[in-house]
């Protein structure tokens, strides 16, 4: 807790004939984060390694499998595992069965593409022919005249044409249809008349016979193609159910083989030997050494290197189980560095508390708790699961604070608020003493002071860890400046729920003893900050602004209470209540409206509460808390290998 897991830096060296055995063992163990070898001038004869001999062949097989999986729309993550296969059996099957499956799939997909193209062609033809069904003329009759011009197309309505012509107009098809035949001499006049009537030409389809019979032929063809497509689709589905697990297992096997075949690209190699530099959890070093010795028959050299200050150590969280879901929130910001404090556990406690202080309503808390539980039953992904656990904790905290504030969906619980009241006087007949705004705001400021002080102390510990005296002095300076300002304020004006120092005798320039002490502490603090860097002094106003920022805990919460109470007042006080007293037909409609307002209003407020409570609590951590001590930018510990799902170990 508060620190990442201890890492050891390993150097593994062996002769090249042991390379495959070493790679396979490291892959199987899945515990070594390999560091890429970078070639520089003085590599003492070492170069970046070459992939193992069969890497190309395995890669091309893998591409085929992924192509088939794509056709089937398969995702390995969603597949349940029925039986684990052994890698050796599967490897034999890959060579034996895969080409046949691939051939079948390719044939089916090719046929499907051809049929789909043909289907589109027929559908297009039917579309082109449809307007011509309005006129009882064979399609052949529209073409092949030397002395006549034919116009066919859509038009808004029937049109008067002055030149000699013959025309057919029909409004039985969508956007009407018109066919006009005229001697070539009058062609331009007719065209002009037609265009004025907003005529849109439709070319005559290149077919013979009546339009209706052509359409029937095409429709028949299209139906036949659809049947065949359905057949092909059912065969693809059948193949998918039959082979999905086999394909997922092959994918896993070949992915692991490709990774193993290509990992020498990250090694340093010479003609005879190879070197691997990597990171292993400190308590696993002995195990790695023993297992590598076993698989190579002792022909491997494993040694632990010193961890230097500049080393980029990968970071693996070391948190108690209650804090693990919050690692997601940490990764969203940035993973901690290896040598700094990891605030995940603090975040895991404070985030739900802040959420509860903001939302603080037993009703909304229960809704969100039910939502997190309900969604958790459908969602299998790891990240979403963690997020839901965080939400669950936050909703429980919200229920607890709801009981303390005595709030459920904006109504009061049957007891008086145990801590500060947030009940607003909303509505014409509202009575009560109203919310205790001052108390709440000062509570929020106290929380801010406490968290900012904690942040500064954590930063001082970080600096102490690196033996940086000036850094420690600066952090103590920030603490002194903040508390100095506070003492100064207490000596100047009485503030409720805060110490009152106004009663002390005045000493100098209107300041009393407390005021002088506060000013001195503050000045000493400023000197401490300047000790590290004078530029930091421009940040001094953040002492006030960051502390004040915590008042959002109250402000955002009160706005949510206000919305809830307004919804209740409109739904019950204005719509439902009066109608229940004097029943009428119109009253029932108003009651239904009231119920709708109640449900929609509270649904909206639940969503707003989730957003407001979640975003503002996390923002207080990221902006106000983390900026005091946390840098982040650590590398994720990513050990070589994968967790096998479909294969036996």
């Amino acid at each position, binding site marked *: 807790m508060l620190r990442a897991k201890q890492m050891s830096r390993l150097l593994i060296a062996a002769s090249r004939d042991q390379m495959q055995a070493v790679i396979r063992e490291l892959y199987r163990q899945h515990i070594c984060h390999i560091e890429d070898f970078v070639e520089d001038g003085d590599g003492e004869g070492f170069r970046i390694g070459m992939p193992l001999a069969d890497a190309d062949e395995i890669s091309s097989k893998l591409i085929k499998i992924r192509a088939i999986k794509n056709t089937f729309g398969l995702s390995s993550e969603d597949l349940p595992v029925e039986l684990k296969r052994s890698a050796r059996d599967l490897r034999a099957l890959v060579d034996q069965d895969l080409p046949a499956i691939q051939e079948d799939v390719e044939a089916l997909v090719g046929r499907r593409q051809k049929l789909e193209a043909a289907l589109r062609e027929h559908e297009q033809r039917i579309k082109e022919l449809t307007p011509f069904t309005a006129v009882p003329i064979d399609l052949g009759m529209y073409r092949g005249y030397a002395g006549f011009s034919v116009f066919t197309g859509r038009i808004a309505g029937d049109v008067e044409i002055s030149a000699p012509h013959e025309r057919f107009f029909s409004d039985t098809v969508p956007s009407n249809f018109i066919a006009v035949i005229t001697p070539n001499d009058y062609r331009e006049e007719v065209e002009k008349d037609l265009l004025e009537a907003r005529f849109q030409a439709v070319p005559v389809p290149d077919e013979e016979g009546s339009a209706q019979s052509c359409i029937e032929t095409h429709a028949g063809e299209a139906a036949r193609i659809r049947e065949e497509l359905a057949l092909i689709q059912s065969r693809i589905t059948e193949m998918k159910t039959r082979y999905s697990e086999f394909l997922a297992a092959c994918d896993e096997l070949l992915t692991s083989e490709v990774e193993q075949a290509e990992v020498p690209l990250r090694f340093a190699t010479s003609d005879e030997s190879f070197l691997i530099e990597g990171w292993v959890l400190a308590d696993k070093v002995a195990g790695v050494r023993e297992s590598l010795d076993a698989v190579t028959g002792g022909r491997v050299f494993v040694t632990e290197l010193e961890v230097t200050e500049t080393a980029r150590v990968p970071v693996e969280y070391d948190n108690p189980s209650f804090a693990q879901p919050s690692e997601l929130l940490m*990764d969203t910001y940035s993973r901690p560095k290896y040598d700094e404090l990891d605030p995940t556990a603090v975040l895991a406690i404070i985030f739900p508390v802040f959420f509860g202080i903001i939302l603080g309503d037993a009703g909304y808390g229960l809704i969100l708790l039910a939502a997190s539980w309900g969604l958790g039953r459908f969602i299998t992904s790891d990240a979403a699961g963690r997020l839901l656990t965080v939400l669950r904790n936050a909703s429980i905290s919200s229920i607890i604070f709801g009981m303390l504030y005595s709030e459920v969906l904006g109504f009061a619980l049957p007891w008086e608020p145990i801590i500060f009241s947030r009940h607003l006087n909303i509505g014409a007949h509202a009575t009560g003493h109203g919310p205790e705004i001052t108390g709440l705001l000062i509570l929020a400021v106290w929380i801010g002071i406490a968290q900012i002080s904690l942040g500064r102390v954590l930063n001082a510990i970080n600096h102490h860890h690196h033996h940086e005296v000036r850094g420690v002095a600066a952090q103590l300076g920030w603490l002194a400046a903040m508390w100095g300002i506070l003492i100064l304020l207490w000596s100047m004006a009485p503030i409720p729920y805060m110490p009152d120092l106004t009663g002390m005798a005045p000493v100098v320039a209107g300041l009393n003893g407390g005021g002088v002490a506060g000013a001195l502490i503050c000045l000493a603090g400023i000197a401490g900050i300047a000790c590290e860097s004078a530029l930091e002094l421009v940040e001094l106003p953040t002492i006030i602004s960051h502390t004040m*920022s915590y008042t*959002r805990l109250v402000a955002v919460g009160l706005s949510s209470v206000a919305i809830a109470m307004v919804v209740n007042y409109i739904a019950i006080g204005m719509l439902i209540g009066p109608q229940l007293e004097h029943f009428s037909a119109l009253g029932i409609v108003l009651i239904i409206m009231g119920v709708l307002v109640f449900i929609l209003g509270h649904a909206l407020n639940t969503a707003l509460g989730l957003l407001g409570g979640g975003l503002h609590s996390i923002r207080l951590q*990221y902006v106000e808390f983390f900026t005091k001590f946390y840098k982040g930018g650590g590398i994720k510990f990513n050990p070589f290998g994968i967790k096998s799902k479909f294969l036996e170990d």
Partner: protein
Amino acid sequence: MVDPVMTLTTVEMVEASQIGMKSLAAALAVVGTGVAAAFAEYGIGSAAVGATAENKDVFGLVLLLTVIPETIVIFGLVVALLMLF
């Protein structure tokens, strides 16, 4: 000669108008800071979405930058609350 009923009504009117002024002042505090926060976040937010599209890793950082101006509206809200209660 001062009419006592008239005086009472005038006092009531002044009180009511003071409550109204207070509410207006509170509304102004929230409106002004709300517009300011929205305007500040508008620029940062659009840049943040662009940056996230380029590189997903900066999401945490840009979320932080986007919410920084929100403090403005919170101050407005706090001032309004202090005025009203």
